[in-house]
């Protein structure tokens, strides 16, 4: 395998991991807002998960940017130039959200505002993040005077963008509902579990519909992508099977509660579903980072840098794994944390 392919594989894996964690993180913010004063503990549970974890998820977002710059500097150059406005807006919203998350921890009076801000950002930030996908598939960048410019008008009047956003948001809420259903079950909160399970049951099919419509409204500039996607159809078939398994397991009986469902299994299957689909989509997108002007081969970093980055990722992972393990034990497993009132 070429170094370029390994690099894009690593980067795409990071993007996949972040899209899962990010969905859960931003989705939890959204649900915490919706269920802020709900009679079940659904809001509290979302928030209990969010408090210690959002910083880590945020670091992961920075990791994506850094990995992108390190592996594909030319890609960072193009997307940095073109996406100035949407990315600046993301930064702006992220800053407000993060600040209020911390402030509300110190001063109780800010809690209401925090729930509101974090909930709204939980929708807006993912919507902005996903604009990268339609931009990268071509047709929205024009070069003049030797520099690339984003055709903002064309982008924001394109149905493709809105379908991507819809797909992104339904997926975010689906994944976070599933995760929170599992978290509620571990916390032994049946009311919250029932609520999140219901949300997941509703949202699951919606994500599929959104995905199909997104493909149908792809603009003519993206015909290359459609051709490639159909070559990768095996991954999408696998993805659909994983969806059936995950969705189905929400009806399996479990031993702990009256309400049916094995949410841990469902969550893992749905993550596999997105994993297969991401792999298929990623393969179809190659070799382009931005169609048609920028391939992974044009954008690649210096070979020496690539190797030292890879070594350091291995070292970093080895150092961090125990830390993540302790963290998981304390906040996702420890009954004293999960079942506090």
């Amino acid at each position: 395998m070429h170094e370029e392919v390994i690099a894009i594989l690593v980067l795409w894996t990071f993007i996949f991991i972040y899209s899962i964690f990010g969905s859960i993180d931003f989705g939890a913010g959204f649900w915490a807002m919706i269920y802020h004063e709900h009679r079940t503990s659904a809001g509290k549970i979302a928030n209990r998960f969010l408090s210690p974890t959002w910083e880590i998820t945020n670091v992961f977002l920075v990791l994506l940017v850094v990995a992108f710059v390190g592996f594909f500097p030319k890609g960072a150059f193009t997307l940095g130039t073109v996406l100035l406005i949407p990315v600046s807006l993301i930064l702006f919203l992220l800053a407000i959200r993060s600040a209020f998350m911390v402030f509300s921890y110190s001063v109780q009076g800010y809690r209401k505002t925090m729930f509101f801000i974090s909930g709204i950002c939980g929708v807006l930030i993912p919507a902005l993040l996903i604009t990268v996908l339609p931009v990268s598939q071509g047709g929205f960048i024009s070069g003049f005077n030797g520099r690339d410019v984003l055709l903002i008008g064309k982008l924001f009047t394109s149905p493709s963008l809105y379908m991507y956003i819809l797909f992104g948001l339904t997926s975010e809420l689906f994944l976070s509902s599933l995760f929170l259903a599992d978290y509620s079950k571990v916390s032994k909160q049946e009311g919250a579990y029932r609520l999140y399970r219901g949300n997941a049951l509703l949202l699951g099919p919606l994500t599929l519909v959104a995905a199909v419509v997104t493909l149908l409204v792809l603009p003519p500039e993206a015909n290359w992508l459609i051709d490639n996607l159909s070559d990768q159809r095996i991954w999408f078939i696998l993805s659909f099977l994983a969806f059936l398994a995950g969705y189905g397991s929400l009806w399996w009986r479990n031993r702990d509660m009256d309400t049916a469902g094995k949410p841990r299994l469902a969550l893992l299957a749905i993550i596999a579903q997105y994993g297969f689909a991401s792999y298929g989509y990623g393969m179809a997108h190659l070799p382009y980072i931005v169609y048609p002007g920028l391939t992974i081969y044009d954008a690649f970093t210096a070979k020496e840098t690539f190797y030292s980055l890879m070594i350091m990722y291995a070292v970093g992972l080895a150092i961090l794994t125990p830390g993540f393990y302790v963290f998981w034990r304390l906040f996702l497993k420890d009954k004293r944390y999960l079942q506090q009132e």
Partner: protein
Amino acid sequence: MDTVVLARSFFGTSLAFHIIFATLGVGIPLMIVIAEILHQVKNDNDYAIMAKRWTKAFAVLLGVAIPSGTIVGVQLSLLWPGFMEIVGKVISLPFQIELFAFFIEALFMSIYVYAADRLPKFFRIISVILVAVGAVASAILITAVNTWMNTPDGFKITKDGTIFDVNPWDAFFNPSFLSSAFHVSVTAYMTGAFAVASVGAYKLLKGKLSKNESVYHKKGFLLAMIVGLLFSLISSFSGHHSAQILHEHSPEKLAAAEGLFETQRYAPLAIGGFTDPKTEEVKYGIEIPWMLSWLAAGKFDTKVKGLYEFPRETWPPFYVHTLFNVMVGIGFMLLGLAAVALFFWWYYGKRKKRPYPRWLLFLLIFSGPLSMLGIEFGWIFSCSGRQPWTIYRVQTTAEAATQSQNLAPLFLLFIGLYLMLGILTILILTSYFKRNPVSKEFEKYSGY
């Protein structure tokens, strides 16, 4: 304003805002670690209360440090795409390792804050030490990139800009890295200590304290003064070493900092005044003969290069002389202030048994803000003293900047954001500590 100036102002504003929180984010964890350790060693609950309250403040500051750091990190690609293209190829390594440091800090900060009551004592100390280590490691790694801009190394570049022969580790350990990273760390520790000292001095000066409170604040104040004195002393030596690195590797910068135009042996040190662009000399400054040569390399006959040695279009702006002077001036002022403060502590407290002089407490209120100002001036000096280059003698700032035209409204949006976050931080900190005064902590405190 043209795009380059706008991009510089925009990025400079983001950095100037971030560096406040980043510096305190390095300095305060050290104070927390010391307090936690003193609590264990002396078995004195006051230190546990200190650690707890400083952690509160630190958590709020971190709430701004993280997003503002995210902004700076991403804005690098947005505002300086040309620069980041070279960075990606040559010096992305420290950025990447910095993330691991950042992960460690964020993980253990969450653990220390949200799980403290479920942790055994020693693990709590380990957590807070890891937070402090993560924080300072982040600062050191980011400094690696900055020093590489000042003294680039580890790659070759052809006339048309193709990069080859990359050695990422040589780029990392570029000539000014160790010296500057050390300087950045110790000045951050010094600033964290003086920030704590400021609060202590204010509390002691305001008075109306119960016996417990007064003892508590005195302990915190004394601890901060000792740490502050120690690190301002180290800072002055490390600053001196950094200047010697300038002499060796960035002679234009040193010449501009000193307003030196003619290359000479026995060069004088110019303190104060300003560089007159018409007559090309320092006006209204005090000159100490031979001193610059001696400082630059330890000998009076050291030849120090003046600006005439270099093409005019590569001269740094003349105002860096003032920036340099203010940075160094503040450093020495704080060193003196801390020494006097501690001497009086011993003299009045231990020998004369008389109250501590109020004028000194008043002056010490300003030590934290002054130290922060020194940091700001230092960074502005380091970066504007490199102009017109972004990467010294490789890439000019104009070549690095974005070509996008929409910067002005975004710049205004972010100025608004920084103002809002700044004001909110102050409001949150004051309202929290007003509602949870230290007297309340004594009541509910029964020890860990």
